[in-house]
């Protein structure tokens, strides 16, 4: 069977048949109703699965050099074989650099937003600076952070703090401004103090904006943590693993590390999305979805 497939025409025929099957199955699923779970999730999953199948077939059949594109089976083996190393990298990059940096940066950004909420002057001063900060490649401060905080994860976390601070600041201010005049007047009529109004009205109203920033920042944190390691890192970390193993042309391990990073990034984002839905179920954008 394999010999038949390995032969030119046999292989070509098999690929054509599989291609037809793939196209047919994806189109069938795509035509399903928007509401059905099978239609919504099944289509991308099946699409992705077929891509992996063809990836495997093409890399094996055409003997694609490992450097160019390793087969999914090779990536899987590398993942399993180096599980311990990758776990250590995961802890270093995701848990230490990214998560700790993300928490600190978001907390600082939120606190700063609340603190300057009362000063229109400071807002007008800081918001343009924050807008500019988003156009600047902040990852570039990595070498400086290494100089100040050393080679370990602390310097990477510092990079993440700087990268996540500004988006959180901007969104906190936007969220705090969001509560309507009528609602604020209501609180005034109750004789509520500034801080009471803040906690009971303005922060809940700001939550959708805050969560938006938390999600955006989670992606920035992963990027910051990994890229900061490209600039120099001790002996562990996903970024370190990727750049050193790529230099050694050990592509299976590189792709395995990338898979870990990708999974970490998307799971973090999904988790935040789940928390957001629980915390801001009242917001129109969620109400509409719930029907």
């Amino acid at each position, binding site marked *: 069977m394999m010999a038949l497939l390995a032969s030119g025409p046999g292989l070509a025929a098999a690929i054509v048949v599989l291609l037809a099957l793939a196209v047919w199955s994806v189109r069938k699923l795509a035509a399903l109703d928007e509401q059905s779970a099978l239609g919504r999730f099944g289509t991308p999953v099946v*699409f992705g699965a077929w891509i992996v199948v063809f990836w495997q077939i093409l890399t094996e059949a055409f003997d694609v*050099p490992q450097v160019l594109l390793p087969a999914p089976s090779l990536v899987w083996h590398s993942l399993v074989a180096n599980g311990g190393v990758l776990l250590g990298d995961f802890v270093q990059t995701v848990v230490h650099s990214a998560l700790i940096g993300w928490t600190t940066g978001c907390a600082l950004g939120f606190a700063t937003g609340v603190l300057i909420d009362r000063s229109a002057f400071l807002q007008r001063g800081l918001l343009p600076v924050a807008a500019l900060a*988003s156009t600047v490649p902040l990852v570039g401060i990595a*070498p400086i952070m290494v100089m100040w905080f050393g080679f370990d994860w602390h310097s990477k976390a510092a990079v993440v703090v700087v990268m996540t601070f500004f988006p959180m600041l901007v969104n906190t201010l936007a969220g705090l401004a969001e509560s309507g005049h009528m609602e604020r007047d209501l609180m005034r009529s109750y004789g509520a103090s500034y801080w009471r109004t803040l906690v009971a009205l303005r922060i809940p109203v700001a939550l959708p904006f805050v969560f938006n920033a938390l999600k955006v920042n989670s992606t920035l944190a992963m990027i910051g943590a990994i*890229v900061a390691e490209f600039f120099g890192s001790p002996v562990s970390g996903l970024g370190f693993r990727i750049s050193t193993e*790529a230099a050694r042309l050990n592509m299976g391990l590189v792709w395995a590390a*990338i898979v870990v990073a990708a999974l970490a990034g998307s799971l*973090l984002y999904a988790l935040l999305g789940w928390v957001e839905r629980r915390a801001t179920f009242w917001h129109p954008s969620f109400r509409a979805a719930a029907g």
Partner: protein
Amino acid sequence: MAAAAIEASRAPARSAIGETWHRAGPVLAVLGVVLVAWYLAAIGLNAAQVIERELEPGWAWQDLVRHTLSMDRPVLPAPHQIALDLYDSIFGWPLDSPRNLLFHTWVTSSATLLGFVMGTALGALLAVLIVHSRTLDRGLFPWIIASQTVPVLAIAPIVIVILGSMGMTGVFPKAVISMYLCFFPVTVALVKGLRSPGVIELELLHTYAASRGDTFWKLRVPASLPFLFPSLRIGIAAGLVGAIVGELPTGAQAGLGARLLTGSYYGNTVQIWSALVMAALLGLALTGGVSLAERLLTPGGRR
């Protein structure tokens, strides 16, 4: 929007100069505070080394200040040191010399711009296909959205290695990295924008018996522009990061990323900061360029 209108009517009327001062004043104040804090921090952080190595016993604070603000390899360089280094680099060397930061800036920005153009074109093409094909919309688009949560930049070393093994070095691999960083936000924003026209506008064109092409060019494309430009700004900023990161893995010689790397290898702090300031200015210039294009291409001003 009604709240903004009420807010605007409550604000006092200001003259043109008053308005500029109202906007710029706080920013200048903040920058001024930052500048002062920077100098103090420079003195503070550099003090330990200076006291240990340079000052004779019985030093006064004036000596401390003088020395900490003019070290060769400071922990934190003073702003004027960075400014001087920039000035020397830009005006003291010919434009094609690797000692001139503008040369490095050109290397990085050319990769960024090339990648940006390619990424935007690819993103636009993909968005049009997704909007018109249900299969791609359901099968591929969710992956593109999901990939925004993935640190795509992690693939940069692979791209360099793969393209290097195929004999391609220099601008092109970096541009490829920039390209795929640009194309994700552009695709997502354009799909949203091309789909933004409401039922009423679509029915209007239906009553004109407009062709699909007419509907696309006269309605969908203009409606998508407000969605496109913010994503272009994000895309070009991301592309810049991509180009810089692309200069790291193989120890490239040219480009702002390479300057950052060599500066950190040799402990040349001032060089690192200069390269950083230059990268920041480049980022500002690139996104400013996109904003300018937006102003020119959007008729009638604000919406």
